[in-house]
């Protein structure tokens, strides 16, 4: 099993979610995060004093999936989150040893 972590622009969340739903992905975790990569922050001005806001607001989407589905999930996320402009985000994949469903105690792929 793999954990697919995607950092995306907040306004693309709806598209990302429906693309994953169409693939039959049954759940995901979304958190509000901030950070920066190539895209720099922005400037805010309060009573004439400028503040550089370095971190940009992003969403982190986490999905655990079967090895067989990894590429499809990645493609779905990337195409849904793609705008072609700087700051579109990143997707990375990590291996997951096991998953347990708390309610039933099922382990591994059955728990997905």
């Amino acid at each position: 099993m793999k954990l697919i972590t995607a950092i995306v622009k907040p306004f693309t969340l709806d598209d990302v979610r429906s693309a994953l739903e169409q693939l039959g992905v049954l759940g995901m975790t979304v958190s509000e995060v901030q950070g920066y990569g190539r895209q720099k922050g922005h400037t805010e001005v309060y009573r004439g004093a400028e503040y550089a806001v370095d971190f940009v607001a992003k969403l982190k989407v986490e999905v655990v999936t079967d090895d067989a589905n990894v590429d499809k999930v990645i493609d779905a996320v990337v195409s849904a989150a793609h705008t072609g402009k700087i700051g579109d985000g990143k997707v990375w994949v990590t291996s997951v040893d096991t998953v347990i469903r708390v309610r039933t105690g099922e382990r591994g792929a059955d728990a997905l």
Partner: protein
Amino acid sequence: MEGNTAWLLISAALVLLMTPGLAFFYGGMVRSKSVLNMLMMCFGAMGLIGVLWVIYGYSMTYGSDVAGLLGNPFDMLGLSGLMTPEGDPTAGTVDVAFQAMFAIITVALISGAVADRMKFGSWMIFGGLWATIVYFPVAHWVWGDGGWIGELGALDFAGGTAVHINAGAAALGLVLVLGKRVGWPREPMKPHNLPYVMLGAGLLWFGWFGFNAGSAYAADGVAGIAFINTVTATSAAMLGWLLLERIRDGKPTSLGAASGVVAGLVAITPACAYVDTWGALSIGAIAGVLCALAVGLKYRFGYDDSLDVVGVHLVGGLVGTLMLGFVATTSVAPDGTDGLFYGGDVALLGKQAISALAVMVYSGIIAAILGLIIKAINGGRVTREEEINGIDEAEHAESAYDFAGGRGGRAASADSGVAGNAKKLEETKS
């Protein structure tokens, strides 16, 4: 008389509301870790000055004159002789109530300068001493029978010198002694809640109608003039501030709109019953632009006036007080004086400048001396670590916002608080 009494009672309540309004105007501008302390400094002034005022403050301001400098504090100690249903209440109890609110908000105004760092106890001591040594006498100078500024013939309808220059100069004197916040000006200290700031500015504007139009002491035409000028100048000041931001920074900001409103209100305060529409518009517009520029002075000179009490109240107060020397007109106030632009001579401008300078110097110096004394006693400010962690927790043992309801609170000991109550309940049952 009944009509006047009714209007003054309402005005007093309006002016009281300005202090909570100010608390939110200031509170939104600080970081989320200091908002309770900011609110508490304003509310603290309500408690403290409310008590001092009725004991000896009113008497020190309006009691029988001593050498033009102060009223006799023993004249009406504890409001003796005033607590009677006889006579004209606008010269008695209702006057006491109305002017109490002025004393309260003048002290509260200073608190914005020391946000994030001054110990609450030190602030309360400062507030009480400053009111006693500075506000009560200075209000006597301006408004008391025989006060020297009033005798001089300087104009101050509702408190440009006594309230705004006074509080602004005190703020400057105090912060010079107290020192900068940790990290200022390198670290960003941006406002944590601009909607609070806007709400506070709205409440201030609303309350200010009591402040200015109430100062007519009658429900009459003078109150009407003061009222409309409080709209005119304030609107112009907001536009002035926003226009400057649009040109200089590119965007008109909500903080700029709220600040422009307050700058306009401050500037029209001394002038509201003495100027015509053109005078009010020019006072407002000039105050809006000048105050927007003046809030940058602290970066140039290196004093950490946290929320720009100097830039808005001292500068705004000076604009209104000095511009009266140009735009005061007897066509609006037959008992007043004409300014330079309305056929008057330079004497009025001179009187305005003398009164402004005297209040500024006296208040600034005394505030600095009080700050030094407080600093010598207990440092005057929270420790560096407490300041970084947040003064709310250090001084009040509270935090303003708890967005995560389930973050694992528990009773601090088995015998007190929630756990203690549960234990008592168990004992009662058994």
